[in-house]
């Protein structure tokens, strides 16, 4: 167990280093980073001043060392727009993004898994058809567009929910639903196919033939096994939701990290963009690590290396 966790931890650290390297390379390799950060009509003096200030005139290795030590200490430099350190600005926005992703995931689980279960036990039924349709829609509707449509119909025309911000308790409903919909569809599909597969397994037939009650079989034998793939998908998807709410936060003016990212793209605020990219990756890696851990607890086969 400890060894398994250790190797996963080392993998994650290597991954994190890879992310840092990638972010560093992307900004430096594409030419003049100072020109990237300033507007097109910046004067040569302004460019030179920024280069000096940000240390772009130093040799690449020195810059990389400086950058890595800074990143480890949580120092990504000052935001060009706010003129204050970048990381605290990102951390300030974290609770809103976590709230959005959590509510979205909760909606996906509460709606998606029951529909998938019913679909798996009664393939071809009405609920099953609804579930498959939901899965297809969740996969195909662009979330930024769905967000706009919900604002228009549920927000403006019907006035059910606030159209932007995070001021009242029901502000979270629309953005969380839009964020959760693709995951909902995926959970329906996955639950359904897992139930179908496990129902055909030998141990289910054995349970039936030794005279167990169908209810006991469904609850004890089927559901427990369905939970295994679901845990890993929920963990990984939660990470994606934390890192993938850019459009939704921008549309609903949700004060989270994604909205901040969309804004900092407009400001060409690279220190801030870097901080968001690295910090979000860190969270996603942590979540993946936790998912692996949960997975290995539920499914002993993983722990013992099959």
């Amino acid at each position, binding site marked *: 167990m400890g060894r398994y966790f250790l190797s996963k931890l080392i993998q994650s650290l290597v991954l994190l280093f890879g992310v840092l390297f990638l972010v560093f390379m992307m900004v430096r390799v594409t030419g003049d980073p100072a020109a990237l950060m300033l507007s097109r009509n910046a004067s040569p003096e302004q460019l030179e001043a920024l280069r000096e200030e940000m240390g772009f005139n130093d040799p690449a290795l020195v810059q990389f060392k400086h950058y890595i030590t800074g990143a480890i200490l949580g120092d990504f430099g000052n935001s060009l727009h706010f003129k204050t350190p970048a990381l605290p600005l990102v951390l300030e926005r974290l609770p809103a993004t976590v709230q959005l992703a959590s509510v979205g995931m909760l909606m996906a689980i509460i709606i998606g898994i029951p529909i998938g279960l019913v679909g798996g036990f009664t393939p071809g039924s009405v609920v099953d058809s609804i579930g498959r349709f939901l899965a297809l829609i969740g996969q195909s509707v662009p979330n*930024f567009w769905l967000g*706009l449509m919900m604002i228009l119909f549920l927000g403006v025309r019907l006035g059910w929910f606030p159209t932007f911000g995070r001021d009242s308790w029901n502000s979270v409903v629309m953005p969380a639903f839009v964020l959760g919909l693709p995951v909902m569809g995926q959970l329906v599909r996955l639950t359904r196919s897992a139930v179908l597969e496990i129902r055909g397994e030998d141990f289910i037939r054995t349970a039936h033939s030794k005279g167990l009650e169908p209810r006991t079989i469904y609850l004890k034998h089927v559901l427990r096994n369905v939970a295994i793939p679901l845990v890993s998908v929920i963990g990984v998807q939660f990470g994606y939701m934390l890192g993938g709410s850019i459009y939704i936060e921008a549309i609903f003016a949700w004060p989270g990290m994604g909205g901040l990212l969309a804004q900092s793209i407009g400001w060409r605020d690279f220190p801030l963009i870097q901080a968001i990219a690295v910090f*979000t990756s860190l969270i996603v890696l942590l979540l993946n690590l936790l998912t692996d851990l949960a997975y290995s607890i539920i499914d002993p086969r993983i722990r013992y290396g099959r």
Partner: protein
Amino acid sequence: MADKDTKSHQTIDSLLDTEKTFKDRLAYFGRFLWRDRGGVIGLTVFLIVVFAAVFAPLITNQSPFDQNLRSSKLPPAWKEEGTWEHPFGTDSLGKDVFSRVIYGTRVSLMVGLFGVLIASILGLLIGAIAGYAGGRLDAAIMGGVNLILSLPYLLFVVFIATVLGRSLLNVILIFGITDAPIFARVTRGEVLRIRESGYVESAISAGARWPTIIFDHIIPNLLGPLITLATFEMSAMIFYEAGLGFLGLSVPPNEYPTWGNMLAAGRKYMTSYPWMASFPGLAIMFTSLGMNLLGDWLRDVLDPRMRRSRK
């Protein structure tokens, strides 16, 4: 249950039937087409989109670029003030929404097609090398592949697009390169499976030469999963391109009309002139829905294992 069994018997019989003529094959294919209407819908949608992209000037005589401030913000034709000259209305600068949606298929399809082409070629090479070489090289390559796949994808695409700047070529390259790991992973898995399967060994022991093995045994078995994946990935790229456009990171708006740029521009007018953003959104949904249906169907048709387990 009995129904399912006879069906799978039929499938096995028709697979074993080596004397199959072209006509039989066609009929077999046609039966599938009929049985899975989702696939027919998907294929039709895909063909409509391709047709719209190729024959855009024949479908609409309006230019997607012409601005006319006098006829700006016109509603769609079925509204009271609308005209059939602008079936989907006009945007804030008087550009015809319908023709922009039609011409918009070009960028979407180009990004999807070339993006998938680059990603699949890169992924095929990387995955095949990893699968054949095995050992340390395999472990190193797959380590890198899994590294990239575990990153928050959207975030990195946005980051890279911001750094590289807006252009069609950049968008295609970004998707082509960032999507290659998925193709690599699938290719490697398939190569491993094929290598370990008995039929390649039997073919070698039966004296088949390597071109026969590669072209008759390995490539057909590799092609199915890759084509299926390509369909889903193409749909995803069209989706992400629109997303980048929405953030103002895709093709510059004065070069080509794109659905994402239309959405971004129409967003401001959402509450008073909803058609400006509704139609490009519908176009993305239509295309994406069709390609996903097509992908589902291809997966079933091209993979016999899936075919049997399907309900």
